[in-house]
């Protein structure tokens, strides 16, 4: 969950690991604040999301391109590796916060209300980010398909 969020956000295994390690080190320092297993999951997602957004904003544009050349092993094989790679590349073109909303929606399967609570933003803002991001991804994916054919 933590590494996956960071990896899909940053597309760079080394930076994703650094962020994930930071999250767990921080968890170790705040263990006393954790009230329940559900709170632990919420806390990990929230900290992982915010740290990944910060890391994505610091990331050099070139690092993203370099990272796209290699892919880490996922727990389930991709149905269409080319389409998967294209979508992941298109995701990196979204602004950091919008990208995180997409990652939380489709990797973590969270609904807009849960994403809004994690990122401390209004539900309607999450919904509009999602709508806009999907429209951008759809348009760019179809543009790429046209170029390829």
């Amino acid at each position, binding site marked *: *969950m*933590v*590494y*996956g969020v960071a*990896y*899909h956000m940053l597309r760079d*295994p080394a930076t994703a*690991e650094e962020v*994930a*390690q930071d999250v*767990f*080190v921080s968890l*170790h320092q705040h263990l006393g604040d954790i009230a329940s297993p559900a709170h632990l999951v919420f806390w990990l997602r929230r900290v992982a999301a915010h740290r990944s957004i910060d890391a994505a904003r610091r990331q050099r544009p070139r690092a993203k391109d370099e990272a796209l050349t290699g892919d*880490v*092993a*996922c*727990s*389930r094989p*991709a*149905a*269409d590796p080319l*389409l*998967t790679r294209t*979508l*992941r590349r298109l*995701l990196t073109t979204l602004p950091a916060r919008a990208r995180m909303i*997409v*990652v939380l*929606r*489709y*990797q973590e399967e969270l609904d807009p209300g849960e994403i809004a609570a994690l990122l401390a933003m209004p539900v309607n803002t999450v919904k509009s980010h999602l709508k806009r991001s*999907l429209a951008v*991804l*759809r348009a760019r*994916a179809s543009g790429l398909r046209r170029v390829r054919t």
Partner: protein
Amino acid sequence: MNIDDRLRGALRPVAPPDGFADRVRARVARPTQARRARPRPPFSVPMALAASLAAVVLSSTAWLAHEQRVAREQAHEQLLTALRVTSHELRALETRLTSR
């Protein structure tokens, strides 16, 4: 397949690399040991700079005060010498006038 399913496929869960948990454990242990091993300096760099600046200001103020005191003492000495010379001259003049 719609964009939702495609995104779910592209954003499948990713397992952390081998040894991740060990590296986290090592990092959790590291700062505590480092904090114990490394003695904290008594002053930080800004504090040391401020202290040096204060020392320079204080020593130059003390030096100026010393210089002024020396100058005052010299002036006082000169005045006393001048008064002694003057009174000596006056006494000599008075003696000469009286003898006439």
